[in-house]
């Protein structure tokens, strides 16, 4: 009697996440794809199938520049974040002792305010009369131009926005990591660098990859940070996309940009997960 029952229960448990995925991910995506093959004229949708939007995106230099700028930004930000987050997470896990929990909760504090609020705060810090440049000028020094409404300012904003997330993912990965494996490696004759490169890094690679993607994907499609801080030469792809849906009313083109972003995000995911042999990161799946 219990056999079919268990199978039925298993099916129900599979249905729940599947339904969620279809409702909240697949359906909107399908709508986006459909829209991207239509046209918009005079703030109205024209339901004629066409690939014109994609042609525009692939040929007009402005969109190509926006895209390359976004891609470069996302790569730089994510690599920088991983490099900075690793030592922070490692030191919390290794030396945090009983304050570990407090440290990890502190990482969540920025999430208590909205993204817009945090960007406005940052604008106040970095702007021409902001905290940093204001202080510099009062001391008689020249203001730092590169942090005023520039791609550097946007970079700083992304680092500021996503650092807690990257630290948290790597922190969680390290928390699950058995540090005694590092002792075992030392006892096997490995110096500090080898202990890191042979044991600690590979065994936390999947966590690191997730941390990377969690900053890469939102940076790639970000629209708010460049709008607040990017200045005249700081337009990013996501920001341009938001404008299509807003001021310019070219929704179909915006939808095509959205599809491009989704495709590139999926590509990043696939490339990273193909590049990582889970087995070699200590992932054992269901067995034991």
């Amino acid at each position, binding site marked *: 009697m219990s056999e079919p029952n268990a199978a039925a229960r298993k099916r129900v448990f599979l249905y729940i996440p599947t339904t969620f995925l279809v409702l909240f991910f697949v359906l909107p995506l399908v709508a986006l794809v459909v829209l991207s093959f239509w046209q918009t004229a005079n703030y109205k949708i024209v339901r004629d199938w066409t690939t014109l939007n994609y042609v525009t995106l692939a040929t007009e230099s402005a969109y190509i520049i926006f895209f390359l700028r976004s891609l470069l930004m996302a790569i730089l930000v994510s690599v920088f974040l991983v490099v900075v987050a690793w030592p922070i997470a490692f030191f919390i896990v290794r030396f945090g002792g009983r304050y570990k929990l407090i440290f990890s909760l502190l990482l969540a504090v920025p999430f208590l305010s909205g993204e817009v609020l945090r960007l406005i705060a940052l604008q106040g810090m970095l702007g021409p009369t902001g905290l940093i440049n204001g202080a510099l000028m009062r001391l008689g020094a020249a203001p730092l131009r590169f942090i005023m409404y520039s791609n550097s300012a946007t970079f700083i904003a992304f680092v500021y926005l996503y650092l807690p997330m990257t630290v948290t993912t790597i922190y969680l990965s390290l928390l699950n990591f058995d540090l*005694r*494996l590092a002792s075992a*490696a*030392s*006892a*096997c*004759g490995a110096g500090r660098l*080898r202990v890191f490169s042979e044991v600690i890094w590979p065994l936390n690679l999947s966590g690191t990859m997730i941390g990377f993607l969690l900053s890469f994907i939102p940076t790639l499609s970000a629209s708010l940070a460049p709008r607040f801080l990017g200045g005249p030469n700081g337009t990013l792809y996501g920001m341009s996309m938001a404008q299509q849906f807003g001021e310019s009313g070219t929704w179909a083109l915006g939808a095509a940009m959205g599809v491009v972003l989704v495709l590139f995000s999926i590509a990043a995911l696939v490339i990273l997960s193909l590049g990582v042999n889970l*087995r070699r990161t200590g992932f*054992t799946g269901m067995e034991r």
Partner: protein
Amino acid sequence: MTDTSAYIKIDNVSRHYGPVKALHNLSIDIAKHEFIAILGPSGSGKSTLLRLIAGLDRPSEGRIFFKGQDVTALPPHKRGIGMVFQEFLLFPHRTVRENLAFPLRMTQETPAKIKDRLDWAEGILSLNGLMDRYPNQLSGGQQQRVALGRGLVTNPTLLLLDEPLANLDRELRQEMEVEIRRYQKQLGIPFIYVTHNQEEALSMSDRVAVINKGKLEALGERQEIYDHPNTPFVARFVGRATRFDGVSDGTTVNIPEHGYTFSPSAPVAAGRVSVFVKNERFALGASGTPGIACKVIDVVLRGPFVEFILEAANKARIIAVQPKRPDMHAIGAEIALTWDANLAHIFPAEA
């Protein structure tokens, strides 16, 4: 000048964690061909001692010498040791072959040498057919052998073993005990073997160091430690023993709770004493003869031995171990319990 001639010398080593004295003024000299067991209850500082010898931790005080050289400040990878952990700690992302090759790669051995040593380990530890598996595809005993191999492939100065058999079942444990002892004799390097299991310590080692609360309680040949414990702790901890509270008048010892008096071979200082008798050294005489009158309330068969669970007149439980014989006492039998006065260990009662 300290004498640093011993192969391994642990000289007055202490390790304090804040107010916790995990180890206190501990000294042990270890000879080249020795199998030494570090025996102590949980939390006595055994792992701490091993970590200090390995270099995974530094002593608060004291020095450690390998072959006359002071290694106290050396990091683990410069000490040339092998180590086997209780939880095995194999690298989960590496195959058996890669796990075994790891220490060899760290010492920059040539590929030919690595292959040579891997073949040696595969043979001596019977790992044939397992070399390309991952650790989680191995049984506990197989993982244990790989861990042992990983500790031994580099021909280390000494091998440190931290309760390597604790996670194995009884049968396998006894098998591995014999194996490990055989490897040690074959390789001629010291094995320092940490355990809280006195049977394991006695079955494998040449000498036993008993530690309790971070202090060295006893250090000696295993037979010596077993037959002539020098402290009440050792008498209680090594072997299975029963304790009686007694009163000595200088020549005889009386055990008031059982109304039994015996005369030890050597004189004992007058006063309150603790008497320890190893469970297998009890003699079960016929009821009515001199001794502690007891009733057999249960009989437990343990292979070639029998455990008699006895109950004295005051309801105290005593366990006596005897070789198994066809004509043994049955449950419910009345007997008189005695012991050879020379084999009882008598200490002044602890305050």
